[in-house]
Every structure is written in C-alpha cells, then in structure tokens.
C-alpha cells in the first residue's frame, strides 16, 4: 500500500510526518537542511505557523528551525 503523500503545511501544529520529497525546494536550502540531517526519511514535526503568512516553525531530529511557508509548501511528507 502506497503511503499517501501530502504537503507539509497541511499538517496541524503539533503533528508529525515522515519527509518523502525534498526535490522541489531551493537547492541551497536543501543542502542546509541536509547538513542538519533533515532529508528524505526523517521524521519532522510542525510546531507552529506564524501569523499573516509568516515562517513555519519545525522540529526535526531534536532541532528547532524555521523556514518560509513558501518553501515548506514544497516539502512532501507522508504517513502523518
């Protein structure tokens, strides 16, 4: 059974999922995330969404980080 793939920003705050696709995001950002061990297969949690379309707060592998919604929308996750 194929795990359904969906957009990271569909997750509600506090919910986690496994990253399935990072291909679509800015290559330099992808590299930065990889440096932190954030790549396909890693479990990621949405902590909160900032107001007025601001950045998203994420947690992955015990690290807290923030990226813009626009980029987060390009991350695919599955199995939430």
């Amino acid at each position, binding site marked *: 059974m194929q795990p359904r793939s969906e957009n990271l920003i569909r997750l509600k705050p506090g919910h986690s999922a496994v990253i399935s696709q990072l291909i679509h995001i800015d290559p330099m950002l992808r590299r930065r995330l990889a440096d932190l*061990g954030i790549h396909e297969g890693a479990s990621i949690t949405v902590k909160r969404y*900032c107001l007025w379309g601001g*950045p998203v707060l994420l947690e992955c592998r015990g690290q807290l*980080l*923030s*990226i813009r919604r626009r980029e987060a929308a390009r991350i695919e996750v599955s199995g939430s």
Partner: protein
Amino acid sequence: MNNTALIGNPNTGKTSLFNALTSSYQYVGNWSGVTVEKKVGQLRNKAGSITDLPGVYSLNPVSRDEGVVATFLVGQEPSAIINIVDASQLERNLYLTLQMLEYGKPLLIGLNMMDVAESRGVHIQIEVLSRMLGVPVIPLVARTGKGCHELLEVMSHNSSQTAAPDWILDYGETVEQAILDISRELAKFIPNASLSTRWAALQLLENNQAVRHALKLDDDCSRRLDTLLEGTERSLAATDPSMTLTHYLRSVRMARIQEILKSAVITQPKARPTLTDRIDQMAMHPFWGVPLFLTFMYVTFKLTFDWLGNPLSDMLDTFISGPLSTFISGALEALNVSGFTAALILDGIVAGVGGVLVFMPQIFIMFLIISFIEDTGYMARITVMLDRLMEMVGLNGKSLIPFIIGFGCNVPAIMASRGIEQEKERTLTMLLVPLMSCSARLPVYALFAGVFFARSQALVVFSLYILGILLTLLLAKLFSRTIFKNQKSFYFIELPPYRLPQGRTLFRSTWEKGKGFLRKAGTFILAGSVLIWMMSYLGPGGVAESMDDSFLAYVGGLIAPLLQPVGFGTWQAGAALMTGFMAKEVVVSTMNIIYHVPDINGLQVQISSAFTPLQAYSFMSFILLYTPCLATVGVLRKETSSWKWTAFSVAYAVLLAYLVSIVIYQGGKLIF
C-alpha cells in the same frame, strides 16, 4: 611550532571552548578573499597555538566563508585537530567528525553540552564512542570550563605519540576504486605524503570545490579528475538512477553514524515539553510575541540612554572637559609647548575626540544588551516573528539584527550582516543600515531639538528615527524591484535552545562590537578633528583673524548655495555637514568651533539665531540621511568588496537626503 585547529558545527560552544583553552588570542586579519576573520590563540598549557576555524556542518562548503576550513586543511596542515561535538546533536555533528577522521591527523573530540543531552534523556557511553571512532573523547561543559583541563592534558600526552586515527570507512567497490584512481593522480601534487590522498579523493568525489581549488591541480590533471568523477557517477547511476555521487557518499557515512549511535547512545525520550518550548510559548506567542519584542526594544533604548547611558556619559563628559582638560593644559604649559600646538591639542584633539568618547557608555550598554539577546537565542526568535514584514520589502528576517545594531553604531552593524547568507539580501541590508539613526547623530538632534522643540524633544527625535525606518522599508522595496530584481533567496534559521549566556563570552561579544566604534574614534575622528581644527585656524591668508576668513569658511561657502533650497545655505551649515562626513558627531564639534563658543549653552544661543525651527528640522533630517560616515564607508567597502556599491551607498544617501530635506523645507514653508 605546533599548530592545532579547532573545528566543529556552528552553535556548539566552540567560542566558549576556544576562550577556555587559550590564555590570549588575536585576530590576524581576514582569511584571504573572505570576510571571516582568522582567530589564533595561545594554548594555556603552552603547547603551541590553536586556530579557530569557522563553524561548518561539513567540509564541503556552501559559501565562500565556509570554504576557508577546507582551504586551511589543505594548505596549512595543522599538527592536531580538536573537534568540538554537541552531545545533544550527535548524529549531525558526527558527519563532520567522520570527514576529520578521514583527514588522518591526530584528532581529539571534545564532547560538549553533555548537560543538555542528559536533560533530553540522551545518555552517551563515552568509552564505546571513543572505541568506535578510534580517538579520545573528552566530555566537556565548555561554558564553565569543565573538562578543558583534561582536554589539554590528553592533547599534550597525544602529541608525543602522534596518534593519528586508524579509520577506514568502506564506500563500496565502485567508489573505492575511484578513490584509488584519484589518489594516484593526486600523488603527483602532494609530494611529501603529508596530506592524506584518500581524504582528498573523497572530498573531490563529494565535489568539494574549495579542496579542488586549494590543491592547485594543473589542467591535465583536472581533466582526468573530471573524467574519473563522471565515470564513477555513471557507474553508480547504473545500479540506482536516482543516486548521485554526493548523495551516495552521504548515505554511506550516515549509515555508519547510525551504527555508532546504536551502540554508544541510550535514549530515554522525555515526554515533558522542554524549558525552551515553554519559553517559546510566550516569546513567540501569536498575539503577544511582537509586543513583547517591542517592549524589550523600548527597555533597551531606555537603559542605553535615559536610565544608565546618559548619566554615565555626563560623568565622563564632566571628567574630560574638567579635570582631564585642566591636567593636559597644565602639562602643555609645563612643557612650554607653542600656542599653536597647545590649541591644536586642546581645542582640536581633546575637544573633538573627547566629544565622541563620551558616547562610550551608551554604545557599550546597547551592545551588551544586544549581545545578550543574541546569546540567549531570543534574537533568532525575533527574526522569525518579523520575517514576514522583512519579506514584504524584499529583505530577510536576519536583516533585523544588523538594523538593530545600527541604532548603536553603523560600523559593527554592517559587519553583522555577514550572518545573512544570501548575497542579495546581504548587500541590500548593508546598503540600508546607514539609514538606521546611529548614536552619533543623537548629539545633533539633542542640540537642535533642545533649542527649537524644547517641549517636545523626545517626540521630534523619535520622529527622526521613524523617518529612517520608513525610508528603509520603502527603499528596500524599491531596490528589490529594480536593482536586485531576479535574485532568488530563501529564509532559514536554526533556533538554538534558550540558554543563559556565560559572562566571559558575553563580554567578548560586546567588546567585538564596541571595538569598531572605538577604532573609528581613534582614527577617523582623531584625524578629522585635527584637520577641521586646522582648517578653522588657518585661512587663505595665513592664520585666520576670525572664523570667517578660515579655510573652513571658504570651503563651506562653496557648498552653501547648493544648500539654499533645503533651508540652510550658510557656510557654517555647509562646513558642519562636510565635517560630518568624518563622523556625524563631529557636526556638533565643528559648530562649537565655528561659532567659537566654549560650551553647549553658548552654542544653543548661536544656533537659535542662525536657524528657524523648520530649517532645524530640515537640517536634522539631512544629517539623518546624507552619506554614511567615513568609517561606515570604509567598512562597507571591505564587506562588499566593491567600490561600486560603496559609491552607490554614498550617492543615493546624498540624493535621498537632499530630496527629503527639500520636501520638508519647501513643503513646510507652504504649510506654515
């Protein structure tokens, strides 16, 4: 002489460790070609020197600043490495460690932040870790200095055995063959076998451009290398089409790291939210978050000025113009110094430089508070909350830090822009920092507002700050749409756990920022004060009889007609503005000299008869906006590495100042 290199991820407490291990340190200029400064210190146990390398996640650089690390490792060949590792982020940190093990020089691991790891339920078995990596692992709490003594001991013990790690990670047949082939090629360029060819080969396979560049291969070898790389890439793709070479290497290393972690780390996940989480509930609260930040800023400014800074500054002023001046003039008399020199020293240097040094309290207090905000981790949260606003005008949340620092002094603010990775936003931020009303402009505001707007001083000064901020947002939008069109960017920030900054690191941080200001005072303002004083003393006809005959008046008079439309077409204003280019505080010093008054009261009387309130406001706006001071221009040139941008920043500032002042003055004349 032994040279050790200190390497590790960013945010691992490397700076604290460096401070704890060294008895003294100095910046030996910049690494060539980049803005990062090279920091070398003397180890406490007199075992030689230690170089602090910039924090990186991997030797394969993302930016030029990061490339410094790989370049150093190829070119300098340190005799030993200390790798600082964050115990609470072991998986990520070990990625760099593995690359350093492959480097083949004696390696020591300092396992820092053990306390943070424990609080997260992460228990690391040091001996197992040490055995699996093949190198000594010493637990540390760098903040308190705990463990550093042992680290130094093990270091000196090690050096007598030159214990290089015996580490081989098998990358599979295809890659191992490639390593052999590449090593053969490289052997011609690394004659004395001091640099591990295996390490170099692996870095090249990972497409590390910095290493490639540093090896200085000739064209022939370069071409053969490219062929080898392509071949390897193809072989890998044959088995798995989606696998790139870089990806493959990373996955091999990650697999090994997982093995190590499984054996060496015991995790008891704690379900309770951490302290950081709880603080963030408040700090980043959707409703209260920004007001809380504004309150912090308000308190910062209050402390910097009203509550603490101004009183200290006044005391300093009293001292400089009182006992110090008396002492110096007494000494000059005793030494029988000529009238010219005495006047030069007292009226030029002491008055000029002293007038700037009285601001030291405000500057250092503000920088202390800002450093505190940075070191606790709160600054990162602030950039997140305000990123949306910044994004709307084409900036980045990270631009906020230089802007805030800019309210203290533009010089360290521009240096702080280094933290912005994306070039477009970094350049844009640096161009806009001068619009942040630095503390140097305050004496001008204080003088004029005190004379003309006595009852609403604070409001008037505040309006100028706001003017600067609004223009910044406007110009950011304008520049992004025009000059910086078509440049991609993204926002990314890591939010460290909240922590209480350690005193020593905090003071060093503050000093780094305040140093810029002092250096400015010691050089530009000193030179400027002497120059201005001389220009006011001498004139086309020798020693000037009165101020009106001096060079200063002459040059000021040349500019005066240009300043008619903006409301202050007098040689005095022209001269003052010109000298303000040196450093904006000097405007007041110049006016002191020009109107030849001994103190602030006399000056106020003179000013009130020379300007109208509208002209005064126009003048203050002009001071706010026109050209960054000389020191700022200097640092802009250094940080942008471009005369084009430096010239642009001066040009647009002057133009902007002129336009805004015209609008204020002419518009004001129509209304009032």
